């Protein structure tokens, strides 16, 4: 089976769908001739022509707005926002329009669009190249929100998202683009090729939205995570020796609540990990649901490990990042109680 990096897997997903469905168009800032600042669309313009893969003006609101119009026409646009930190100008079109079209038109119009964007820190990108805004989308009904953590899932989830008739926010942890990351910035970068989840089948396959993956079985505590943090959680479990069960959500909305509840009922303990700022992050929703649904199984308070409630700093990147040490402390604390 071919071994792909996450960038390659994402590109492969688009390539594979563009080949079979001419209603798929790909655009965004620098995605055409150049192939995207992270190279996710490299070669697509050459292969499918300028009307199906092209550069967009630097206007995120326009990018989303025209994508909605294209979607209403019957295309399936896949738009790239260069960094998730720059999605906010397009937020109104996403929230007020993409997410509402089907509802307000009684199903006549809808926006089968995917909005891809790199998220998360770890590349010294400072506060405007490091954000994880997923909770700003999970609060908005009508949207689906997806975050892969590895090449296999990235391709399968992106294909599922492209085929989905609802608008999908597709967050790509940029620190994972070219290799897994366990939260140790000083260790040399290992390429994806050495990781089993870089085995990516050729051609079309889907990883369904709303199905979590079990990354590690364990009996002591359930860790709910996604994106980069799924790997960091694994590292924390190894390093602390806590027998943690690690769930990688893959899609936040729809949420695989059964997988979470099943695990917490077994372990009686729960740690939630994400990179986004803590307050009102998606971890709050997860904690609330676990508490509501597993109240009588919980033996200890649910711990949340998250980015601090500050902007993502540049030099203090690794003080900000919720790395394996912090996750490990939470695991131990969850076990203490």
């Amino acid at each position, binding site marked *: 089976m071919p071994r792909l990096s996450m960038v390659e897997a994402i590109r492969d997903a688009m390539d594979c769908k563009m080949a079979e469905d001419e209603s798929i168009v790909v655009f965004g800032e620098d995605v055409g001739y150049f192939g995207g600042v992270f190279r996710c669309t490299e070669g697509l313009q050459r292969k499918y022509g300028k009307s199906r893969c092209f550069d967009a003006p630097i206007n995120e609101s326009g990018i989303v707005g025209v994508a909605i119009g*294209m979607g209403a026409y019957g295309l399936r646009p896949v738009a790239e926002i260069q960094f998730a930190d720059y999605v906010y100008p397009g937020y109104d079109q996403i929230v007020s329009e993409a997410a509402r079209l089907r509802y307000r038109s*009684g199903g006549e119009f809808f926006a089968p669009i995917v909005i891809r964007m790199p998220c998360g820190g770890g590349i010294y990108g400072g506060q405007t190249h490091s954000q994880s805004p997923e909770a700003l989308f999970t609060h908005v009904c009508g949207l689906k929100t997806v975050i892969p953590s590895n090449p296999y899932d990235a391709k399968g989830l992106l294909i599922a998202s492209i085929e989905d008739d609802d608008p999908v926010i597709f967050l790509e942890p940029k620190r994972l683009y070219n290799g897994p990351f366990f939260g140790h910035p000083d260790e040399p970068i290992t390429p994806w090729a050495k990781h089993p989840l870089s085995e990516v089948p050729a051609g079309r396959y889907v990883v369904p939205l709303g199905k979590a993956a079990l990354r590690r079985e364990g009996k002591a505590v359930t860790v709910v995570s996604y994106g980069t943090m799924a790997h960091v959680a694994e590292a924390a479990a190894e390093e602390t020796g806590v027998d943690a069960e690690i769930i990688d959500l893959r899609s936040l909305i729809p949420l695989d609540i059964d997988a979470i509840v099943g695990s917490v009922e077994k372990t009686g303990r729960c740690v939630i990990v994400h990179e986004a700022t803590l307050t009102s992050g998606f971890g709050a929703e997860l904690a609330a649901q676990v508490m509501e649904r597993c109240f009588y199984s919980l033996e200890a308070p649910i711990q949340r490990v998250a980015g601090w409630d500050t902007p993502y700093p540049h030099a203090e990147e690794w003080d900000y990042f919720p790395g394996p040490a912090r996750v490990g402390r939470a695991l131990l604390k969850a076990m203490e109680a």
Partner: protein
Amino acid sequence: MSGRLSLHVPEPSVRPGGRPDFSHVSVPEAGEVPRPPIDVNPSEIRDFAYSMIRVLDDRGEAVGDWAGPLSAEELRKGLRDMMLTRAFDARMLLSQRQGKTSFYITSLGEEAIACAHRKALEPGDMCFPTYRQQGLLIAAGWPLVDMMCEIFSNEKDRLRGRQLPGLYSSKEAGFFTVSGNLGTQYPQAVGWAMASAIMGDTRIASGWIGDGATAETDFHSALVFASVYRPPVILNIVNNQWAISSYQGIAGGEAAKFAARAHGYGIPSLRVDGNDYLAVYAGSLWAVERARANLGPTLIEWVTYRAGAHSTSDDPSKYRPKDEGAAWPLGDPVERLKTHLILHGHWSEERQKQMRAEVDAEVLEAAKEAESHGTLHDGPKPSPATMFEDVYKEMPRHLREQRQQLGV
């Protein structure tokens, strides 16, 4: 060093209590502006933004290059469309006063724009309207009953009571679901047109925005994308002089003509007498032909006046003279087309009266039928269970759970 700075805050020429004054609105003679070929270089018609395309002169004669080929039959149909729209508005306004719905917005005084524009489009084209383009649906022959059911949020409302009255959706009629958010549909129209171009289709899009909403950022997005990709889209600005209480100067209309906005994007633009059915049709058709011939976007500023209140929640006498509408120099679109038809012997005051009665009756009958399916607080309504549908294509588990919680 010069003196101290101060803030300029634009102010309409007159406020309640004052004498209406439209001396700032210059009204060129009908027929003055030539009709260029559709492949004209936009730079050659920049002066159009500072003039006004008018066909009907003061006597009601159709003059100049833009005087079009519409038959008497077609013009009578146009007159009827406008009158039907006006009657529809009047009735729905009354229904709102009677508590049959929560809210209503009329298009009084602006009927020519939507009705004549619609006539220039083909089936399959798509409008992205604001809440004040009901004329597009009516001129397309869309059933009044269907529109009213939406207004009454009743059991036959295809939008299941979800939307504010007047925010219709009809894919079949080429009428995109109206947003309550201003401006958002403008770049969507551009995107729809881009899709048509990408697919090598022949369909075109028509986007709509008000003078006030041109200030919204989506206006710029639409123009930038239209400028870059040259999709087949018509970008309509309905300049009815007022937003809610703020006049067009607060949107920048004092400093420049809205039509001139297009110049910075290399998009050709027209400025047209919006109360002149013939001018609206002719201007629309020019833009439609351009778009259809793959020549790209056209921006059109329709100059008109919002003769009624902004909506049923508004009282315009608080911010403008009550009789301002009567002083509006471009007159009333229904009166002007009527005069034209009479001048040419195609119509009479008598037949006008008759048609008035006819459209009133048509509206009344439709209202009765619609009301039989329920009004906002009375009679059959959409089931609350439908509230959870259409959020997603398939209802996800959390919404199924919430529906159960509601017990419906």
